[in-house]
């Protein structure tokens, strides 16, 4: 019995693989209905499943695949054409086969599902027109006269008649199948099933005409062949072209001779099939050699690989995780050890161990890597079926199939990805009529892209459909009570788009069986974030949408930076770390500036928003003001969701490989932690979730989406601006990228040089521009003892200071709100929050202070000015 179980298990694994191939082939076939090659491949797959299922007494499966095989053989011979309904029926057959296999896997039996109806549909499709109906009737009558199974069938229609009795006999032959040795079973079964096999042959008809008058022993071997295939791991699958097949294809030998040779192998002959054939004189040595060469390219992958249980890989991964921990402990112990206790040879061994561990870890990670295609390969079918249901025409384009991910990650993204693809077809891509009306091609394009970048995998689902209208989202969100009008007013374009990820949100006007029930997008987001990834969406009405998933390569072991904060250690995934900045001496004081209470740091002429970790963890009160000197002496520059920000910490310790352990249910709800790990000394350390930190700090809310939106070229940019008060009540906005530094100077330090105001600034003379004067606003002059607020703009050696009354805030310009009021030194006006703010034309403002400002530096800065909103 055990041998049978093993055969069944092999059969299941192999059949599942074959079915995936079948799905792909059938879809491909729809596009190239005349490809005999594809048809032959599909036919072989079904044939193998049919053969084995008969042998293993899975009769429903056998019946079903048998009819499918008939249909396929007629298609292959060009007797009937592949119509839509035939393709549909064949795909349904694949589904049905799959569900039968699943039932077998779970229960050991075929379950209650009844494929009879489908069998009838398939049979009815055997003929063009109505000819199938009488065939059906005769088949039923024929069932009564079971013994009358005759082998050769003159016409296909009669073959159909003979098939049923043949199968009935097959059932009777079930008895001996439980015998222990599979080979013996094959033999015993051969006697009983001979008519069945013959029937199948006849039905297969033109497939192998020479095999139709099969002798008893021959059909026995046919069975054995199938048994042998399923019993040999990695060798089954007709697509893999065993040597025998290659020889037959080349016309060097006959299928029968190959099967005889296989039979002998099965009975214990350990020689290669080639040698057996040569010995029998069925093939020449030269032919075998040539065949081997032909086959070489195709078989190398198959023969050099072994099927491994996924659980084994998982447990290997766990063990390696433990090994890495133990290694870390050993190494840290050795590092801490006193000089006297250090043992040179122990240190050497430890180092070796360390190296080997790293290597082992890397290799085992590799064993778990699978191409994203493992998930994508299901998509053509999903898209096809859905497109048919929704009346869409969709072309699916996949790019980067070979991109590899850890299988645990792959498993986790399967459902979210499918959901996004379904969404794109159902909601994204419009019906052909609408598309034509909009001047697009009737066929929508759905692109899946995958690529590696910065230690992460990026997956994009791009459609050229209707896009998502933020106004509609906003209206819907308010209607469903997910946000208030007030909240909405302060939201950026990107935040509004992200409302679609809220639970209970749905844009679908009516609920279909495909989507529109308001479940899904939130699940997509939750699932992706659960594995440490992120989801982003960019859309342009009328042009299409892009959903971008950013996913870690692996979940188990990651390099991480350990940092210190308030006397505790924390880990930050290394992939998020861009650089480290040490704040020392004067820098610690002067480096961090406050803009409207929000700390920023000037890093190489860019303002970096800051987040204090101690604040975020609730270890000090928010806005506690100045930190003590020993605190906050490092900035870890991080990026999350395409945004840079600085995390202020007390100490930066080291980088090491950490094993990510999930947090227990009590702590899962605290979003700032991604998990926990153990350091070399056994201390448990929390892993910080960088994306959450970024969100918490409102960094993303303030300065969001710049990269995202611009990269997609969708036009409507949202960019962060510095809002200042120019004169009492009048506000202006300066693009944040134009702001180098904020200063406060004493009015007394302002000097006049030839009608211009200047200050001495960092060893240079810096011209001042009073924005109030420039913009023609007149307010009260600042009193003498009050400082003057300067916004400093620097390019190269030159700087210009804009004097303003007050610095108010960093805000994000709302897309689409810019109006082109062409005024002196203004680019236009934008809406920030709910107020209209004038947007400063920095270039002309600078030139008004220093007409020669750009003359020296213009060339290398061209690029920056091209981005200026003009």
């Amino acid at each position, binding site marked *: 019995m055990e041998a049978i179980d093993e055969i069944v298990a092999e059969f299941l694994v192999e059949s599942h693989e074959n079915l995936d191939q079948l799905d792909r082939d059938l879809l491909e076939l729809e596009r190239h209905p005349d490809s005999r090659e594809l048809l032959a491949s599909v036919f072989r797959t079904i044939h193998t499943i049919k053969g084995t299922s008969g042998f293993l007494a899975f009769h429903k499966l056998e019946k079903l695949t048998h009819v499918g095989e008939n249909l396929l053989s007629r298609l292959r011979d060009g007797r009937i054409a592949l119509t839509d309904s035939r393709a549909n029926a064949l795909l349904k057959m694949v589904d049905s086969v799959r569900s039968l296999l699943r039932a077998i896997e779970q229960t050991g039996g075929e379950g209650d599902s009844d494929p009879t109806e489908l069998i009838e549909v398939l049979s009815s499709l055997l003929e063009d027109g109505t000819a199938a109906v009488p065939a059906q009737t005769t088949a039923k009558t024929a069932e009564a006269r079971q013994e009358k199974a005759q082998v050769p069938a003159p016409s296909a229609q009669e073959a159909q008649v003979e098939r049923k009795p043949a199968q009935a006999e097959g059932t009777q032959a079930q008895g001996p199948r439980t015998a222990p040795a599979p080979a013996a079973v094959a033999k015993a079964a051969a006697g009983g099933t001979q008519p069945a096999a013959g029937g199948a042959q006849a039905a297969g008809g033109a497939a192998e005409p020479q095999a139709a008058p099969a002798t008893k022993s021959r059909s026995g071997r046919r069975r054995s062949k199938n048994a042998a295939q399923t019993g040999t791991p990695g060798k089954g699958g007709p697509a893999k072209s065993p040597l025998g097949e290659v020889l037959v294809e080349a016309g060097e030998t006959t299928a029968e001779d190959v099967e005889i040779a296989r039979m002998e192998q099965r009975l214990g002959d350990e020689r290669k099939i080639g040698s057996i054939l040569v010995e029998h004189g069925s093939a020449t040595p030269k032919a075998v050699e040539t065949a081997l060469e032909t086959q070489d390219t195709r078989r190398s992958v198959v023969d050099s690989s072994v099927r491994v249980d996924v659980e084994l890989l998982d447990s290997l991964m766990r063990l390696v995780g433990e090994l890495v921990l133990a290694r870390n402990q050993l190494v840290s112990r050795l590092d801490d050890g006193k000089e006297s206790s250090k043992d040179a040879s122990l240190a050497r061994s430890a180092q070796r161990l360390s190296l080997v561990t790293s290597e082992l870890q890397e290799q085992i990670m590799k064993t778990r890597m699978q191409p994203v295609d493992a998930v994508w390969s299901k998509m053509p079918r999903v898209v096809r079926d859905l497109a048919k249901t929704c009346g869409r025409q969709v072309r699916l384009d996949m790019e980067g199939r070979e991109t590899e991910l850890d299988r645990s990650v792959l498993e986790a993204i399967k459902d979210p990805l499918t959901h996004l693809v379904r969404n794109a077809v159902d909601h994204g891509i419009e019906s052909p009529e609408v598309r034509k009306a909009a001047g697009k091609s009737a066929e929508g394009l759905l692109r899946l892209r995958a690529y590696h970048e910065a230690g992460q995998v990026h997956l994009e689902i791009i459609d050229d459909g209707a896009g998502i209208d933020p106004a509609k989202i906003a209206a819907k969100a308010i209607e469903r009570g997910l946000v208030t009008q007030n909240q909405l007013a302060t939201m950026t374009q990107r935040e509004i788009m992200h409302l679609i990820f809220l639970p209970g949100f749905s844009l679908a006007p009516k609920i279909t069986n495909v989507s529109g029930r308001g479940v899904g997008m939130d699940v997509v987001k939750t699932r992706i974030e659960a594995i440490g990834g992120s989801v982003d969406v960019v859309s342009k009405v009328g042009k299409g949408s892009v959903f971008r998933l950013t996913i870690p390569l692996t979940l188990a072991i990651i390099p991480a930076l350990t940092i210190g904060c308030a006397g505790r250690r924390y880990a930050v995934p290394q992939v998020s770390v861009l650089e480290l900045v040490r704040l020392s001496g004067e820098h610690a004081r002067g480096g961090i500036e406050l803009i409207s209470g929000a700390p920023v740091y000037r890093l190489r002429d860019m303002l970096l928003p800051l987040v204090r970790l101690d604040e975020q963890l609730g270890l000090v009160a928010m806005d506690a003001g100045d930190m003590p000197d020993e605190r906050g002496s490092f900035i870890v520059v991080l990026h999350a969701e395409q945004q840079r920000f600085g995390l202020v910490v007390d100490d930066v310790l080291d980088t090491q490989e950490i094993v990510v352990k999930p947090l227990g249910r*009590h702590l899962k709800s605290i979003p700032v932690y991604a998990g*926990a790990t153990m350091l070399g000394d056994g201390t*448990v350390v929390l892993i910080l979730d960088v994306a959450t930190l970024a969100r918490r700090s409102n960094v993303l809310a303030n300065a969001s989406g710049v990269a995202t939106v611009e990269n997609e070229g969708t036009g409507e940019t949202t960019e962060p601006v510095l809002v200042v008060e120019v004169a009492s009540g009048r506000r202006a906005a300066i693009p944040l990228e134009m702001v180098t530094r904020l200063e406060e100077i004493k009015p007394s330090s302002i000097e006049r040089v030839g009608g211009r105001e200047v200050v001495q600034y960092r060893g240079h003379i810096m011209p001042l521009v009073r924005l109030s004067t420039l913009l023609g606003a007149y307010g009260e002059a600042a009193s003498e003892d009050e400082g003057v607020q300067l916004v400093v703009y620097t390019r190269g050696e030159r700087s210009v200071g804009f004097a303003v009354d007050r610095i108010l805030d960093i805000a994000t310009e709302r897309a689409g709100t810019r109006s082109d009021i062409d005024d002196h030194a203004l680019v236009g006006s934008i809406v920030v929050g709910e107020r209209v703010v004038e947007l400063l034309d920095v270039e002309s403002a600078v030139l008004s202070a220093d007409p020669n400002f750009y003359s020296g530096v213009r060339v290398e800065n061209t690029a920056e000015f091209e981005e200026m909103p003009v």
Partner: protein
Amino acid sequence: MSQLSTFHVGKYLFGVDVFLVQEVVRLQMITPVPLATPEIAGLINLRGEVLTAIDLRTRMGLPPAEGTREPVNVVVRVDEEPVSLLVDEIGGVLEVSQVPFEQTPSTVDEKVRDLLLGAYTLPDRLLLALNARAVLDVGLENSRAA
């Protein structure tokens, strides 16, 4: 539930079904978890596994311990996830099938009452039987979102 694993917290003697107790360990470093509810004492490393430790004192609404004695971890396994309960001192395993059992007196604070199954009246003192599942059911929804 005829055998209870007992332990002391403050002046009370608590007990939990002996089958729920995986092990008792005197540990060790506890890593506090900022932003978690006060009942969560932190995380411990139990032979390579990260476990959440619940401070039974805080959980039962008792004042913090005086002195600096290391607490004992009673590792309790409910729903397949082991969780550590921090207690002052471990007691023995008591056979309670012959001990009279009473409902938790209604005078006990309602919040605490839900965590108790009842009380065994031992000759010299009360043994409070803990509802392990309820005790572990902390901080699941209401962790402070700062």
